[in-house]
């Protein structure tokens, strides 16, 4: 728990934080001594000559001296104020920096199931808005938060020094005030958390309708969507009103307390002034000073009640961030393992896997097979037959629930993740590229690759020609976010080239030919066979033609192995394979006979 305290993230900026705090405390001290100086000035700077009509005699040198002291204070306060601003900014922004950095590292260490559980959108919010809110709140509230209690305590102490009688009023009001503040904080918090939740729903509803705009239009669902939104909008209005009305009543309560304080001082002070006729002026002067403190304290409290809302909001954000830090990674790395992957031989031994850890909902059941190093293996199966899941297990994106997977004779769990993933390269079903040049994207495969190696990989993946001839700046062409400015087929080939550049022992192509024409597909496959004969190649495909010539084809059906064999064997023995084969070949035969 202690690891997640804000202090932990503030540590690198400890000195800035301490300087900022000290500067604020000293500055507050200066401000508090001003009424005290004033009291001295009015007490000693003049002498009452007669009471009615009141006439006074001035002690000019004393008065000027005190004036000078106050001006000196002003200059010191200026310096302290600048220090406060400088170091608050340093500490507050540093805090944001460090939080974001640590959170990023934490998310980097996440397994795929962690990522699935949190969902990307919500992680993005936690790393952007939530951190901004915390950093802003820290910067803006450090001063008021420190000042108010100090101001209260100092005022109390000075008040006691000056007059015991008057300080009784303070003594009653201050604890009362503190109690009210604490009760408020406790009451507001749950309301605030609920309000934030509702606000998230509002934004999510809008975001979703934006994404699905064509669907909404095509189904004439305008009124439905507006109605749906009005429900969440009403909810956020209701919860917002509930939390805000509570927060703002803070101000009235504080005002009430302060005014009660003023009245108390006037009454108590007035009565004692009446009793002590000889020293009347002194008592009256003390009362004036007291009033000064009261207004000062009110101002400080006012600032505090103003940051109150931001503080509860920041807390809600921080709770969300803490959830990220608290989640435990389900994939346990073996970072110190020295086992090296020697070849690409694979063995699945009675593997069962379920995304929900519930064996009854297993998406892969008792899967066993072997792949010899260097083989070209095809995986075929219907939508939802867990073809992708099968290869994800190889890379330990998820861990099996039962059984074991061996690569090159070792359980995948015995390798370090780094070693494991270094030797397996995958081209995902949805080909994803990143902002940057084509070359930068390819270098993901191997950051030390030479230009020759890059060109070679591109030639194997049949993307060299279009990079050089069709893209405006060749390898230096900038790709938009997610590679939006190249076509689907081009994106697929770039992703294949990126995977090849890794020079893996095992190459996985997950439905990576779907947007390629037959000629290109055939060429890529030929290249893979001829130039990368030493690699184990696993190809997931929708089309039989893609994997027809594989050394081994695994046919999956609803998470189980239906059969394994070459195309010829499967045509004889496997109904599913035969169906798909016939369906896909009948068109071609027609065309050729025509």
């Amino acid at each position, binding site marked *: 728990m202690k690891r997640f305290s804000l202090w932990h993230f503030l540590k690198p900026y400890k000195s800035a934080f301490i300087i900022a705090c000290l500067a604020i405390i000293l500055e507050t001290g200066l401000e508090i001594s001003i009424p005290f100086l004033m009291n001295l000035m*009015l007490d000693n700077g003049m002498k009452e000559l007669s009471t009615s009509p009141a006439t006074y005699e001035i002690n000019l040198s004393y008065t000027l001296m005190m004036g000078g002291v106050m001006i000196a204070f002003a200059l010191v306060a200026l310096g302290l104020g600048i220090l406060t601003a400088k170091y608050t*900014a340093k500490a507050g922004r540093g805090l944001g920096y460090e939080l974001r950095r640590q959170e990023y590292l934490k998310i980097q260490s996440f397994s795929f199931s962690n990522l699935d559980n949190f969902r990307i959108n919500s992680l993005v919010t936690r790393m952007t808005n939530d951190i901004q809110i915390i950093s802003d709140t820290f910067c803006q509230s450090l001063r008021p938060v420190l000042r108010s209690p100090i101001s209260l305590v100092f005022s109390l102490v000075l008040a006691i020094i000056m007059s015991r009688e008057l300080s009784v009023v303070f003594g009653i009001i201050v604890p009362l005030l503190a109690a009210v503040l604490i009760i408020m904080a406790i009451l507001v918090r749950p309301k605030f958390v609920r309000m934030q939740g509702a606000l998230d729903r509002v934004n999510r509803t809008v975001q979703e309708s934006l994404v699905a705009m064509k669907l909404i239009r095509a189904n004439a669902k305008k009124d439905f969507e507006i109605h749906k939104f009005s429900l969440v909008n009403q909810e956020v209005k209701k919860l917002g009103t509930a939390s805000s009305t509570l927060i703002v*009543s803070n101000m009235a309560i504080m*005002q009430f307390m302060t005014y009660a304080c003023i009245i108390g001082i006037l009454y108590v002070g007035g009565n004692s002034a009446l009793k002590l006729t000889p020293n009347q002026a002194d008592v009256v002067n003390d009362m004036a000073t007291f009033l000064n403190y009261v207004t000062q304290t009110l101002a400080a409290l006012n600032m505090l009640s103003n940051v109150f809302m931001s503080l509860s909001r920041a807390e809600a954000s921080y709770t969300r961030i803490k959830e990220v830090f608290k989640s435990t990674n389900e994939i346990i790395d073996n970072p110190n393992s020295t086992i090296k992957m020697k070849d690409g031989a694979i063995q699945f031994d009675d593997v069962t896997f379920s995304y929900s850890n519930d064996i009854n909902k297993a998406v892969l059941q008792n899967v066993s097979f072997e792949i010899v190093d260097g083989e070209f293996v095809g995986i075929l199966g219907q939508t939802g037959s867990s073809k992708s899941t099968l290869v994800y297990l190889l*890379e330990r994106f998820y861990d099996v629930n039962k059984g074991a997977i061996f690569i090159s004779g070792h359980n995948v769990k015995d390798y370090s993740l780094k070693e494991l*993933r270094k030797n397996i390269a995958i081209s995902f079903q949805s080909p994803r590229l990143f902002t940057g040049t084509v070359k930068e994207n390819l270098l993901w495969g191997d950051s030390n690759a030479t230009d020759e190696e890059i060109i070679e990989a591109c030639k194997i993946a049949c993307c060299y020609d279009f990079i050089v001839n069709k893209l405006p700046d060749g390898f230096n062409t900038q790709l938009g976010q997610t590679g939006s400015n190249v076509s689907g087929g081009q994106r697929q080939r770039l992703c294949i080239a990126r995977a090849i550049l890794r020079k893996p022992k095992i190459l996985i192509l997950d439905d990576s030919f779907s947007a390629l024409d037959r000629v290109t597909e055939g060429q890529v496959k030929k290249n893979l066979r001829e130039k990368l004969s030493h690699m184990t190649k696993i190809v997931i495909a929708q089309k039989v033609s893609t994997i027809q010539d594989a050394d081994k084809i695994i046919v999956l059906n609803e998470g189980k192995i239906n059969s394994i064999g070459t195309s010829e064997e499967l045509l004889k023995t496997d109904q599913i394979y035969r169906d*798909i084969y016939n369906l896909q070949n009948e068109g071609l035969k027609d065309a050729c006979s025509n």
Partner: protein
Amino acid sequence: MPAATSGGKPENFFKTMKRLFGYFHGRRWLICLVVVLVIYSSLANILGTYFSGVVVINGLIDDPNSSTLVKQVLMLGGIYLAGVIANFIYCQSMVRITQYVIYKVRMDLVSKIQELPIAYFDTHTHGEIMSYFTNDIETLFMALNDSFANIILSFANIVGTIVMLFIINVPLTLIVIFFIILMFVYMFLNSKRAQKFFKVQQKSLADVNSVVEEELSGMKVEKAFNHEEESYKKFTQANTNWRNAAENAFFCTQMNIPFFVSLSYFNFSISAVVGIIFLCNGYLGAAGFGGLTSYLVYVRQSAQPFNFFTMHVNAILAAAAGAERIFKFLDEKAEEDEGHVSLIKISDADSFEERYAWSYQDENGKNMHIPLRGVIKFDDVCFSYVPNKPILKHVSFEAYPGKKVAFVGSTGAGKTTIISLLARFYPIDSGSITYDGIDIRDIKLESLRRAISMVTQDTHLFSGTIADNIRYVRWHSSEEEILAASKNSYADSFIRKLPQGYETILHDDGANLSEGQRQLLGLTRASLNKPPVMILDEATSNIDTRSEVLIHKGLESLMKKRTVLVIAHRLSTIKDADEIIVLDTGNIIERGTQDELLAKKGAYYDLYTGKRELQ
């Protein structure tokens, strides 16, 4: 607490404010009440200070009497109590007004989104539109909830304090005025500088956010490629830039505070010295000693509202800039919808065609009906997204109920454009499109789109259960209908395997479903909703061929009596089409049945035999 800096300046502050105040409609009297109460609240504070100094303290000195003391203290108590009550009421009212206004603005925004032409979304990112809901609404909320009342309060405090100072002594007040002017000058100069830093900060924030977004959404690829270190470097660069820019911006805006504080000390000490000199020389007159103490309290009070005031002025300016952006969005031109023909229910028959009919009023105001059939005609249609860059050139075709028309061609040939035009997502440049002989421009948009069922390559899913997502196209469908539809489209078996079956809740656009599974859900939706025209745009592209054949068998009964327009990647799925139209750069280059086209050995033959890439 509002941010100490503003998010840009409004172009026309007063016009925006006027429009914003339009949202107070129905709450105007409450606003007036708030203004009155805020001013009273400030007055109570200022009067209270005067009363406690001049009346009570001077009273004690002049007339030491216990009963007068009690009377005066009670009077002061009355003033204060009323002030507290005023404060309570205006704060509560302001919260309600704020929520009311924000609610209405949000509703207007959402209604606008639903009215904008599809073309708007092609040129504006979701992030841009979302920022109205997050950033702009947020600043508006802060300004209304907090700054509106506070700005009046601090202004009233400043004015009231100065007035009271004048009442006590005119020459002494001039000292205070001098310092107030100094503060204003500093505030003005510093805010100019702060604006500059603020802009840099916003830019760096946007940068770090976009890096985070891209890297997190590509996290799985990053892991597969052990790319953690490089990504971390890129992230750290953006994060560091943000830290430095944000540090500068905050430092600059915070510089107001020390200057105000030290100026107010100067002010106070000079006022005190001069005040004592005045008192001793009798210049204070009737105000006397109590007057001096009140005066000094006022001098201190005069500085306090300043920081407050600048803070809230900035917040209001930022909100006005936000409101201006929102209003600009609300003023965007809505989708044209001037048709007068609508789809109305004429019977309770099961089939869509019998239940509904086209209806309009003729010149004599008589209601006329046209039976709903599903005949689609494109007549010499030309279209371009951008002027002078034609996408479709003189396209004509006809499609009848019971017939299937397929469109084939490479990316950018204009296949998807054709169906977008049918749904009137975009207006055509020339030619005409008719539905049952009625120009689609004469049909109300909502009616036109209800008469078409469209399944696209990307299936969008909403947060909610699978059942609700299927039901989306026909909200009142029963569970049996949903079940039947999903069996029909072969989605039932995978849905049953999900953790909670049909009640499984989807998040993030159904992020955990595979592309194929999503398409199955899209097809299920189509099996639930049965208007006479059905469009399948790459609707089975991510489904394996074997399942695809099964699905098509399932859909056959659906397609039998309907007009079907198909765009397909896999030619095997369109072999039974009654007409195949081959498009190339917006021109129809070949048309006919599959047999005719194959015999021709033209473009279609090349596609079919794999000689040409089809994307």
